[in-house]
């Protein structure tokens, strides 16, 4: 150019390439890039085995029975009108809420007891109490089923030794519901216990000392020191457990298969029965997705609360 600012094209090109290379090098050297690349296999796995199936299930739930036409929310509307499905909603809520509350309470008590056991003994007890959570659920549920079995029930054998008649554990609606919830509580309590124990250990001792100086008794320490400090972990644990318990399949399927008279069906077992066994996959998909919006909504608010409290603590 005439103004003298022009540079020949073959001179500027290597400079641009050099600059781009530097940018790429900087990008590759960033910690976040390394982190992303390390996470990439997991992200791909989640995309393939969680995100894709989830969207596929949503797509399936909006098809007609023969999977030849789009019916929108028709399957959900149909389900809501069915008496059995209303029963399934009730049972799923009863099963999940009762189980989670019991697991939380028992886990909380156990964590406190554990917290007060000194040194090496605590490790032994902690290991022992984690056993139910470590055993594969299907296997442990089969053991429970054997103990409830009509012909060879171990519980009935014990009752008979005391002259008490057999109890049809899985043969009467409310008893069967109790059994499924009991097994779920047995299985899930160690998870709560270990989470709460970790939370308890992270509460600064100075807070208790300060409370003691202020004249707080044990109950007051629990409500004004321990619980506020554990709020986040309680919220996350309850949320996580609620989601998992709502999706439970193994326990009900193995113990009762939804019986007697559909009185223990939960969403997953009912979905299996109508979707796989009865060949109505769209209706089964609709059933299994029923709690998704409610749980997603709950998860959003719980996690928002957790984030807010974390920021308050940090501030």
């Amino acid at each position: 150019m005439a103004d003298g600012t022009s540079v020949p094209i073959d001179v500027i090109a290597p400079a641009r390439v050099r600059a781009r290379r530097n940018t790429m090098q900087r990008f590759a050297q960033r910690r976040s890039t390394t982190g992303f690349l390390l996470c990439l296999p997991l992200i791909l796995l989640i995309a393939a085995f969680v995100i894709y199936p989830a969207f596929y299930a949503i797509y399936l739930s909006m098809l007609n029975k023969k999977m030849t036409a789009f019916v929108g929310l028709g399957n959900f509307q149909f389900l809501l009108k069915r008496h059995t499905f209303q029963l399934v909603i009730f049972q799923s809520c009863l099963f999940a809420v009762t189980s989670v509350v019991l697991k939380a309470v028992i886990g909380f008590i156990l964590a406190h007891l554990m917290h007060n056991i000194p040194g090496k003994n605590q490790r032994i007890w902690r290991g022992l109490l984690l056993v139910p959570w470590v055993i594969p659920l299907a296997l442990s549920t089969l053991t429970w089923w054997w103990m409830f079995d009509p012909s060879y029930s171990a519980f009935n054998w014990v009752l008979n030794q005391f002259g008490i008649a057999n109890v049809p554990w899985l043969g009467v609606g409310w008893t069967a519901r109790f059994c499924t919830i009991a097994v779920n509580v047995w299985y899930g309590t160690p998870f709560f216990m270990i989470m709460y124990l970790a939370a308890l250990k992270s509460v600064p001792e100075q807070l208790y000392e300060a409370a003691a100086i202020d004249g707080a008794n044990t109950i007051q320490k629990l409500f004004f020191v321990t619980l506020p400090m554990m709020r986040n972990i309680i919220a996350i644990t309850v949320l996580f457990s609620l989601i998992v318990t709502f999706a439970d399949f193994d326990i009900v399927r193995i113990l009762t298969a939804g019986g007697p008279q559909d009185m223990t069906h939960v969403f997953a077992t009912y979905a299996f029965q109508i979707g796989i066994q009865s060949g109505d996959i769209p209706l089964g998909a609709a059933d299994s997705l029923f709690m998704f919006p409610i749980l997603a909504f709950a998860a959003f608010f719980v996690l928002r609360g957790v984030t807010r409290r974390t920021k308050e603590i940090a501030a």
Partner: protein
Amino acid sequence: MTAPELQAVGKMTRRRALKVAAASAALPLVHIRSGRAAGKLSIAFWDHWVPAGNAAMQKQVDAWAAKNHVEVQADFITSNGQKNILTIAAEHQARTGHDVQTFPTWEVHNNADMIEPIDDVMKRLTDKYGQVNQVCEYLAKVNGKWLAVPTSSGTQYKGPCGRISVLKEKAGLDVVSIYPARDEHTAASDAWTWAAHYKAAEACAKAGMPFAIGLGQTTDSVDFAGTLFRAYGAELVDKDGNITVKSDKVRAVLEHAQTLVKVLPDDAVSYDDASNNRALISGKSALIWNPPSAWAVAKRDAPQVAADCWTFPAPTGPEGRFLPYLPYFWGVWSFSQNKTAGKELIEALMQREPVEQRCTEVSGYDVPPFTTMLDFKVWSEVEPPKGTVYNYPIRPFHKASAHIAAMPAPPEIAVQIYNRGTMPTMLAKLKSGQSIDQVVSWASDELEGFAR
């Protein structure tokens, strides 16, 4: 390419090119016409309860594969946890998997859009061995076309299997003389009615040896309830899809059931398909409705119980005598890459000789679908006691028909009635004290949901 080859290509004329093209096009036809040199074939069999069953099947498949130069991969998939149904559903969704699949009861209808018609094989088999029973036709013939071949492997009747001594002593029922191990119709067999069944159940229950009949939602419970309903002509849904649960016949069967359920075990409503077996084998029950698998296990675990078992036909009701029947089918997926070989293998395995061979290996458990094959020696030979399963398959003098619960409702409704256990649940509700009106009302609401 070598120099001569390049030269040959260079000399390719239009006529030669046409010849090569015609030969190439005809090449696949050679594969289609015969299973020989037909490459690979994968087949999913039902994993037999009797271990010898798988070995016998594998041996026959290997022999066929060697003879026909086909590389066959046979997988045995268990029905425990309904893994076989899950596999079928997955293969249907993915449109890939085995070439030949074993379809239990309702799965042919459930997957009809993906199964290759197999009329040619069925025609040759029925021409040779006669017709199959009406249950097979109901379950595997869709829109006038056979989609799968009824097989003997896993196919079973579920008639009563009773303790000879207990039934005789406690209920005065001499089942060995009523149904002896020979082709003989006895006058006493005409008196083997549902009323007699109830009386025997009541007497045995009083003696602490109840009939271990389940009222759960698994197949044994459903099959029992289905045959009881059919004996009274009680249909929940008719063949045209109309809900007929509010009928006199349904009321009649429920009136009978109302008394029967009272003498069944308290935990009958929580029975699965193993509970009744355990009750018999443990010596706590006088009678169960089951194939000879319970007897076979008893032979190993409780020989004194096995030696006291006798299998015999179902009782008769106002509409006749019906025996629960649970068939399996072999079908070829439409996405199979080797349909011809698949069909040839199925046809070969359903010839009389291999069917009898397999049936003998599993002590008579497998029931062939062709009535002309119901004369195998195994049923009169196995023991103890000799002749214990002679009356396991339906014989002409039984005057009985095979039946599957919910038949003749349209299969897309029937499969839901069956798998949701509607009929045994009706009986379970009676046992829990609900009235017949309440039970009928509940069933009517359920059935409306099935007919969507």
